[in-house]
């Protein structure tokens, strides 16, 4: 289990909901999980995240779909649809 973690970053409204901007998250048995599975786990810890369908995921600074596999050591970011420009 040692080192079988991911870093999760939260931005903007999502960071306000979780009350933190980043945290280390342990993968059960160190196995990869999908974005959807991670969102489900996060929603249990932070009920305010629901509904999670509209939330966006990035893995290692690339936009990914919710079915993306996430493995130990990944940098995962969770945020609302972007509104820059």
């Amino acid at each position: 289990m040692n080192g079988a973690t991911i870093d999760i970053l939260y931005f903007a409204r999502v960071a306000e909901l979780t009350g933190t901007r980043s945290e280390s998250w342990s993968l059960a048995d160190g196995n990869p999980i999908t974005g959807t599975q991670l969102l489900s786990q996060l929603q249990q810890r932070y009920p305010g995240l629901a509904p999670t369908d509209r939330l966006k995921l990035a893995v290692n600074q690339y936009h990914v779909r919710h079915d993306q596999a996430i493995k130990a050591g990944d940098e995962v970011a969770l945020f609302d649809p972007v509104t820059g420009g």
Partner: protein
Amino acid sequence: MPELPTCVIAVQTHDFDYGALYDELRRSCAGQAGAIVCFAGLVRDFAPGQDTDSLYLEHYPGMCERELQAIADEAFQRWAVQACRIVHRVGELARGDQIVFAGVASAHRGDAFQAAQFIMDALKTRAPFWKRETLRSGERLWVEARDSDQVQAQQWDTARPSAG
């Protein structure tokens, strides 16, 4: 066109000088560029009767720069761009302030207009920035993404075959 250009990208808290950015674009391809298109996005009133007092821009450092570079590279693949600059501000901004700059130099105006518009449409839907408005009433709200921006960005996907 010997090789693809690179796009100079900056994400910064301080203001930018639109005229100076244009001058740099122009200087970098003197005698070659026939057209330069520059875009500026500004803080404007949020809605009628709901005056914006200030705007806070949060971003994802690292991913922002990478995504902007990817957007510019995609523009270079599609249009004959000679030089490009993108500047995006973050942090606290006031009404009327400049938010974003995108400038493109090209031999022909069609390429310059299309590349600049593509860059802005892609930036709006892909670059990880988030706006929070503070209204004069004191109310704070995270700006919601607009479906029209998604539609606008997707038009470039369908335009792909004929746009090269």
